[in-house]
C-alpha cells in the first residue's frame, strides 16, 4: 500500500508528550480552585448491613470541618444513579450493600482534618446475611442484594432490561442462531467444560478524582477523571434536576482508565457536597478506595462446542453467570457484549447463548478493557484447543478452517465481517514459529478473539480554522494514555494539509466540545476520528468553495496543499481565503462532523462500527516443581485497518498484552465473607518490568475499516487472547488443563500434582 498520506500513518510525537515528561501535565488532583475544600468518605466495613444510626455531631464540631453528610442530607436531589439501573445511591440509604460502600462524607479545609473527622463519625450497623459469590447469590432463597426493582438508566440498548424477579439476577441476555442447541445433532465430536474468570482490578495509576463547583447561576462544573463526560453530565443533570446545558464536565488528562472511569462514579457525591457547602469540593480516592469502587465482572462460563469430524464447527452453546457486584453499573451491557461474540471469529451455524448478570454484595463490577469478551474467550478458546486434541487437528488449522470470511454475515442487520482474519492468524503463527518443533521444555499456545464495538453510538466534532492557519479541534474524546488527542490532530492535519504542530485538540469540556458518547469500546479513532475527518472535510469544502470564486474556477481540480488551495491557475493560502470570505483579517471557518449510525436491526440494537479482532500466541516454560510459568515469547496480531500512528498502536497493544498477563498469571481480588483481603499493591500483584516476555506486537492493515483512512479500533483486542493462549500453551506442554485464573504457580503446582497422582491428563482440582 503506497502511503499517500503525509501525517496519517507516521509515528508523530504525542501532542502531550512534552507536558508529561516535564511534570507539567495536569490531572484532576493537580488542579486547585480558589476556596477549594477536601472531602473524604466513610465506608461500610460490612458486605451487607443495615445502617441503623449515624452520629455526626462530634465530627462536625472538629475545627476545620465544613460539613458531614449522610443520605439524610440528600433529600433535595435524586438519590440513585447508574447507566443500566438507577440502583446506586450517592450515599448509602438505610442499607450498605458492599464492603467499602460510601455511607457518609466529610468536607473539611484539608484532607488531614477530613480524615480525623472520619474517625469521629459513629455508625451503628446491623449486619445482614450477605451473598458474596455467584453460588451464594444464585442459591434458591438467597438473600436479595436489592429488595426492590430499580428504575432503568439511560441507555437505549438496555431499554429492555430483563431481570428475574425474586432473584439476584438483574439482567438476562439470550442470543440464538440457526437451530440453536438442536444443531448439536449435526456434530460428531462434542466438547464441554466450565471455566471461571476472576475478579480483577483495573489499577489505573491515578485513582478516581473530581472537583465540583456550583456557580451563582445554579450551574455545576465538575473537573472529573472520567472517560465519558457526557454520560456523567446526563447523570448529574438528572440527579440535581438541572438542565444539561447547566452541567459542565471538564476532563483534563486521565492517569489511566481502562474502563474504571466510565459512567458516573464519584461525581454525584462531589456535586452534592459542593452544593451543600457552597464551595468547590475536591473528592479524590485513594488506591484502596478505587479497589472498592469498581472492578471487572467475574464469571462462570459453561461452553459446549460441536464439531463435525472434518473439523467444521457446527454448534455452540454457552451459559454464563456474571457477578456484577452490588450495583449493576454497565454490567448488563457487558454480559450482552461478551456473550454476543462468544463464538469468536468463527462461523457457527447453530448457536444458543444465555447469560445472567447477578448481584452480589461485593465491589460493583463495571467496564474493563475487553468488556466481557475476555471472560468468555478464556473458556471458548481453551475449549477449541481441547476439541483440536480430540479431533487430532492442529489448533491453528482448526481455527483457520472455521474463520469468518471477509464480508461474511455475522447476524442479520449486523455489519458484515470487515477483516481478513486468516491473515492475522497466519502472521501470528509465523511469528511464534508454530510450524517448527518446540523445545522439549517449552509449549506454545494460540488464541483469537472478536468483539463488537458499542452501537448505536454518536460522536460529534467541530474543527475551527483560524486566520493564521492554525486549527482547533473540539472533540470530547478523553486522553487517558491511548493517544487519542494525537490521532485526532493527525487526522485534522492530514485533511487540512497543515503541520500537526499547528493543530490543537482542546481539552474535553461539555460547554465547548460537542457530544461524544464515550471514550471506550476502542471506538475513538474510528468514530470520533471520522467525525473530526468530516468536520475537517467540511472546512476543506468551504475553503475550496471560497477559492473557486477567487480563482474563477468551479471548484473542480482544486485541492488543498500545504495550507493553501491550489489549482492549475495558482495558489491561495488559507489566510488569504479567510480574508476573501470575511472582508477583514479575522473570522474563522467552522466545520462540523456528526457520526451517528443510529439504530439498526442488528441484535444489539445497532450495527457495530467495526469488528475488533486479534490473535495472541505464547511460548512458555514451566518450572514443574514450583508451578511457575515463564512466558518467554508473546506475539499479538491485531487487525486494525490502518494505523494512524504506528508507535501509539504498538504501545497500546504492548500494554494490553501485559495487562492480559496480569489476570492470566498474577492478579485476583481475594474476598472472604465479602471482605476484600488484598485491596492494595502489596497483596495484589500487577505486572512489573521483570514480567515482560520477548514481545512482538504486529498489525494487519488492509484499510478495510469504517474509520478514517480505513482504520478500525485498537486497544482491547490484544488483551483478550492472552489468557487462553497461555492456558493452551500450558496444556500442550504439560497435558494439564486449568479452568481458573490466574495461573499462579500454586494453581499450576496443584494441577500438576493431581495429574501426577492419576498419571493422565485430568481436570484440575478446584
Amino acid at each position: 500500500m503506497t502511503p499517500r498520506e503525509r501525517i496519517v500513518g507516521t509515528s508523530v510525537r504525542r501532542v502531550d508528550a512534552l507536558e508529561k515528561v516535564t511534570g507539567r501535565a495536569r490531572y484532576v488532583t493537580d488542579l486547585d480552585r480558589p476556596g477549594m475544600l477536601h472531602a473524604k468518605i466513610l465506608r461500610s466495613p460490612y458486605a451487607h448491613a443495615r445502617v441503623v444510626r449515624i452520629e455526626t455531631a462530634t465530627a462536625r464540631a472538629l475545627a476545620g470541618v465544613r460539613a458531614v453528610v449522610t443520605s439524610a442530607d440528600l433529600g433535595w436531589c435524586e438519590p440513585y444513579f447508574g447507566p443500566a439501573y438507577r440502583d446506586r445511591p450517592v450515599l448509602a440509604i438505610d442499607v450498605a450493600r458492599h464492603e467499602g460502600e460510601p455511607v457518609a462524607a466529610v468536607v473539611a479545609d484539608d484532607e488531614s482534618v477530613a480524615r480525623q473527622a472520619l474517625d469521629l463519625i459513629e455508625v451503628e450497623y446491623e449486619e445482614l446475611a450477605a451473598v458474596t459469590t455467584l453460588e451464594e447469590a444464585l442459591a434458591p432463597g438467597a438473600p436479595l442484594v436489592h429488595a426492590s426493582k430499580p428504575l432503568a438508566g439511560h441507555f437505549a440498548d438496555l431499554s429492555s432490561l430483563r431481570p428475574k424477579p425474586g432473584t439476584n439476577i438483574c439482567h438476562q441476555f439470550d442470543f440464538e442462531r440457526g437451530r440453536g442447541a438442536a444443531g448439536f445433532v449435526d456434530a460428531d465430536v462434542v466438547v464441554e467444560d466450565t471455566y471461571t474468570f476472576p475478579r480483577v482490578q483495573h489499577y489505573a495509576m491515578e485513582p478516581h478524582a473530581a472537583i465540583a463547583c456550583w456557580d451563582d447561576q445554579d450551574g455545576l462544573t465538575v473537573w472529573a477523571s472520567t472517560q465519558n463526560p457526557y454520560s456523567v453530565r446526563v447523570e448529574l443533570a438528572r440527579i440535581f434536576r438541572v438542565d444539561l446545558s447547566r452541567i459542565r464536565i471538564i476532563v483534563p488528562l486521565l492517569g489511566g482508565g481502562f474502563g474504571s472511569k466510565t459512567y458516573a462514579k464519584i461525581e454525584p457525591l462531589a456535586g452534592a457536597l459542593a452544593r451543600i457547602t457552597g464551595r468547590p469540593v475536591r473528592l479524590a480516592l485513594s488506591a484502596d478506595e478505587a479497589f472498592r469502587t469498581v472492578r471487572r465482572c467475574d464469571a462462570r462460563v459453561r461452553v459446549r462446542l460441536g464439531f463435525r469430524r472434518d473439523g467444521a464447527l457446527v454448534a455452540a452453546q454457552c451459559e454464563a453467570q456474571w457477578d456484577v457486584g452490588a450495583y449493576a453499573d454497565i454490567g448488563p451491557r457487558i454480559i450482552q457484549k461478551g456473550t454476543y461474540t462468544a463464538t469468536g471469529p468463527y462461523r457457527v451455524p447453530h448457536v444458543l447463548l444465555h447469560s445472567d448478570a447477578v448481584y452480589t454484595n461485593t465491589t460493583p463490577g463495571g467496564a474493563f478493557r475487553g468488556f466481557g469478551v475476555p471472560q468468555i474467550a478464556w473458556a471458548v478458546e481453551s475449549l477449541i484447543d481441547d476439541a483440536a486434541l480430540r479431533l487430532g487437528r492442529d489448533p491453528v488449522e482448526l481455527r483457520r478452517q472455521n474463520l469468518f470470511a471477509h464480508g461474511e454475515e455475522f447476524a442479520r442487520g449486523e455489519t458484515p465481517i470487515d477483516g481478513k482474519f486468516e491473515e492475522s492468524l497466519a502472521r501470528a503463527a509465523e511469528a511464534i514459529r508454530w510450524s517448527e518443533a518446540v523445545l522439549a521444555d517449552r509449549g506454545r499456545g494460540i488464541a483469537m478473539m472478536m468483539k463488537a464495538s458499542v452501537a448505536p453510538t454518536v460522536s460529534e466534532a467541530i474543527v475551527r480554522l483560524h486566520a493564521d492557519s492554525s486549527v482547533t479541534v473540539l472533540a470530547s474524546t478523553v486522553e487517558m494514555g491511548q493517544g487519542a488527542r494525537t490521532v485526532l490532530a493527525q487526522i485534522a492535519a492530514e485533511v487540512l494539509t497543515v503541520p500537526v504542530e499547528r493543530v490543537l485538540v482542546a481539552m474535553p469540556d461539555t460547554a465547548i466540545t460537542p457530544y461524544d458518547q464515550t471514550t471506550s469500546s476502542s471506538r475513538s479513532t474510528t468514530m470520533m476520528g471520522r467525525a473530526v475527518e468530516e468536520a475537517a472535510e467540511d472546512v476543506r469544502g468551504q475553503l475550496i468553495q471560497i477559492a473557486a470564486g477567487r480563482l474563477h474556477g468551479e471548484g473542480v481540480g482544486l485541492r488543498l496543499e500545504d495550507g493553501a488551495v491550489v489549482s492549475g491557475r495558482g495558489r491561495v493560502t488559507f489566510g488569504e481565503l479567510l480574508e476573501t470570505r470575511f472582508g477583514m483579517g479575522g473570522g474563522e471557518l467552522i466545520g462540523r462532523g456528526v457520526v451517528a449510525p443510529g439504530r439498526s436491526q442488528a441484535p444489539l440494537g445497532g450495527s457495530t462500527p467495526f469488528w475488533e479482532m486479534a490473535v495472541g500466541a505464547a511460548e512458555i516454560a514451566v518450572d514443574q516443581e514450583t508451578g511457575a510459568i515463564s512466558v518467554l515469547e508473546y506475539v499479538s496480531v491485531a487487525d486494525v485497518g490502518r494505523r494512524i500512528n504506528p508507535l501509539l498502536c504498538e504501545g497500546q497493544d504492548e500494554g494490553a498484552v501485559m495487562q492480559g498477563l496480569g489476570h492470566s498469571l498474577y492478579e485476583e481480588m481475594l474476598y472472604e465473607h465479602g471482605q476484600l483481603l488484598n485491596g492494595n499493591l502489596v497483596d495484589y500483584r500487577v505486572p512489573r518490568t521483570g514480567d515482560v516476555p520477548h514481545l512482538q506486537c504486529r498489525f494487519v492493515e488492509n484499510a478495510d475499516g469504517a474509520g478514517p483512512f480505513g482504520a478500525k479500533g485498537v486497544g482491547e483486542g490484544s488483551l483478550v487472547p492472552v489468557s487462553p493462549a497461555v492456558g493452551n500453551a500450558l496444556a500442550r506442554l504439560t497435558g494439564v488443563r486449568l479452568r481458573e485464573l490466574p495461573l499462579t504457580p500454586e494453581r499450576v503446582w496443584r494441577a500438576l500434582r493431581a495429574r501426577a497422582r492419576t498419571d493422565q491428563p485430568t481436570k484440575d482440582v478446584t
Partner: protein
Amino acid sequence: MLRPFALHRPSTLHDAGHLLDEYKGESALYAGGTELLLLLKEGFLRPAHLIDVKRVPRLNDIVVEDGSVLVGATATHRTIERSPVLGISCPIVPAVAQHVANVRVRNVGTVGGNLAFADPHSDLATLFLALDGRIMLWRRGVEREVPLADFVRGPYETARQEDEIVTAVRLFPWPARTTATYVKYGFHERPTLGIALALTLDADARTVVEARLAVGCVGPRPERLSIESELRGRTLVEVLADADRLASAAAESIEPVDDLHGSADYKRDMTRVFVRRALAIVGARAAGRDADVRYPHTVVV
C-alpha cells in the same frame, strides 16, 4: 496525610530513653519510617510523639568487634549494600540487602526498623538467623543481647520492651571454608519463601563441620531447622546424594501458615524444593563451579 504528631530528635541514647519514658504509651521510635509511617497512615498506630533516633551518633555504624560484626540499627539497606566492612567480613549480607523491597525503600529503610517490625515476610531476619544474629537492646544505659531467634516472637511481635531501643544487630560471619547461598522465592511484593544455607567444610573440604539452615517467610517467624544436625559430620558428597531426603525432612520440620502469599501445603513443598536446590547450589560452589541457575520468581544470592 498523617495525623499530627510531635517529632523529637534526641542526640543521645539517654535523651531518647528519657523521651520514651516521658511519652510512655503514646510514642514510637522512628528511623527510616518505611514501616512506621505506613502504620500511621493506616491508623493502626496513632502515636502523639515520634522519637527520631537517626541523630544518635554511631547508631548507623558498621564495625567489626571481636570476630563479630555490629550493624547499627539506623544503617539503611543501601548502606549495608555498600558497606566495605560487610563486603569483606560478611559479603552475603550486602548481596542479599540489594534485593530487599525496591530501591526507594532500600535508600531509606533501616535494618533496625526492619527487624523491630518483624514482618514475617522478611529476608534479613532469615539471613541473620543463619548468621547467629543477636539483637542489641538498650534501656537506661544498660544493654542486653537477645538471640534473634528469641527476639522475633511472631508476626510483628518481638521481645523488645516498650522502653527499649534496638541499637544494633550483631552478626557472626561464617568461618573460612564456608559456602553459602540465600534463595528467595515468590512473585508477590513480599517473598513467599526465604532460605539461608551455609555449610562449613573441614580443612580437606570434604566433611561438613558446621551447617546453618534458616527458613523464613513461610511461617510466623524465621526458624533454624533441626536437620542442621543431620548435615554436620557427613561428607559433602553424602549430603548432596541425600539431598532429596534432607529437603523433605526440612519441609516436614517447619510450620507454615496459609496467607495471601500461598497456602501452607504449597509453602511446605516449596521449602522442600528450594532446600534441595540450595543444597545443589552450595554443592556446586564448594566444588568451585559456578552455580548459575535461574528459576522463575527466584532470586539466588
